[in-house]
């Protein structure tokens, strides 16, 4: 049960991320990239197999969980965080210099939400 919930969550986050990334305004694109990075973080985490009541420490418990994906997720979170900050700054910069929030710089009054 948990595994289907988990897989469905990753799938819907990815689908929403892909949809938003294909939008023509910078703000939805940034949101889409963020959702994609959430999805990939959960996916990486799941690749260590889902366990309950298992510490990521050898010998402390009869069962243990794989610590490596957790380290990978940590790295990925830090990098995605920095990249999101950067893309927001750049989106604001182009919003100012190009006078619009379209990814090609043209202004758009269209409301997509």
């Amino acid at each position: 049960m948990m595994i289907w919930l988990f897989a469905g969550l990753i799938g819907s986050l990815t689908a929403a991320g892909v949809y938003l990334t294909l939008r023509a305004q910078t703000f939805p694109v940034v949101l889409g990239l963020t959702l994609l990075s959430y999805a990939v973080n959960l996916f990486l985490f799941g690749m260590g197999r889902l366990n309950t009541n298992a510490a990521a420490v050898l010998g402390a418990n009869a069962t243990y969980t794989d610590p490596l994906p957790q380290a990978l997720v940590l790295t990925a979170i830090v990098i995605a965080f920095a990249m999101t900050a950067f893309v927001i700054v750049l989106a604001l910069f182009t919003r100012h210099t190009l006078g619009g929030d379209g990814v090609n710089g043209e202004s758009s009054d269209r409301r997509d939400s």
Partner: protein
Amino acid sequence: MSLALPALHNLLAVPVLLPILAATVLIALPRRWLAAQRLISGLSVLGLLAATIALWLGDAGHSILVYPMGDWPAPFGIVWVYDPLAGLMLLLTATVALISLLYAIGSDTESQGAHFHALFQAQLFGLNGAFLTGDVFNLFVFFEVLLLASYGLMLHGGGAARGRAGLHYLIINLVGSTLFLFAVGALYGVLGTLNLADLAQRISTAPAEQYPLIAAASLMLFVVFAIKAAAFPLYLWLPATYAETSAPVAALFAIMTKVGLYAMLRVHGTLFAADTAPAALRDLLAPWWLWLGIATLIMATLGVWAAASLRRQIAYLVLTSVGTLLIALGLNSAAALTGGLYYWVQSTLLTAGFFLLADAIVRARGHDDWRVAAAIRPFAPLAILFFVYAVALVGLPPFSGFIGKALILKAALDSPLAPAIFATVLISSVLLVVALARSGSALFFQQQNCPPPAWALTRSSWLAIALPLGLMIGWVVAAGAITHALAQTSQQQLDTARYLRAVFEPTGFAPHTGAQP
């Protein structure tokens, strides 16, 4: 072995540690201390060049040097692996960095914004790390480092057009990074390791029901590298990015598409090597490389014809070299790889130099497109340089592009796709000659009577423009010896069993036991 080996091993850390140290110091320096920034950045690049040359000469026996981080053995710790191919890339990166830095200092690009030198060194850190690492997740981290630095460098100097191109470049690469993580996660989930050699070993013994997952993860990884290499149909970000950024950065970016190609060669070449991978997975990528190469070459040639400005035209020339190299890699033989590596080095150097020359020509004309401008001054040096660069890049004899393409085509004779490869490469070469001849006549022979813009290049800028041509001439003169050395390199690259042995049984390097005979 010998006492020299540990020293050589420690030298292996220099190409990665030196730039990051320099970058750390450079960030702390105030912006007005330009002379100090130049000094540190220049010393770092020269040190890099010296270290990579020393590694290349010290490793004359073409051994594979393995540097286990923190002395953790191969599958558990992260290893750096230096083999002749990585050595060649390090050497090429240091050379391109020197050319780019000379021009950046000479043309005053560095002072158009803050932290040019720090970003430049961070970029070199990422590039060298990506070339040296033997671990797929470590490769991801170094890719992020080099990309983050490249975003900053690409936007250096600011401006609306640059911002727009930078936004596209950033977004496509962020999507690529996400895809990279999905692929790495899937590989780890199936195979339980991220070390390149260990992955190759486990693929060779993997049960057949895992093949579809391995294939899916590897093809996702291939898409990521194809974005970096700007292969068809994922090349659309490249022309605007390279054309809009400042000239020294575009020159440095000449190595960036090659990182994608190198990662394909390193990762997919190792995972699906002919000598270790199971037969069902061996030909996973074979149908893709050649056709993608042919398609990239065709689209890039059309792009050179259609380009609305000189710098965009050169960006498409970068793409033609990507297409040619994809064909060489796709042929997947030692002979093709030898020709490919020969072409690889000279095309990187020449496109880097051509971007710098284009900057000089644009300054001399006052604008970047084909509109008629004032007569170019100084006419002779710029026209001669343009002619030589164009002819050498397109690949007419007696220059190096010709030898590279001839070697690749000779290796393609045995391929079932030989007719398509020959037709594409030869027709594209002819079309490129015509397109560049047209550009040359538009740039140099159509002029109107108006005062030319005041501009000047410093001596170090001229040196940066001329240096790639000098190296290219050396590359032609010593072609016999070089192809001989590259043949050894490519044979070694295809010998994955040897790579696996080197990673799992690092001989001659035992810092703590020290008892190796």
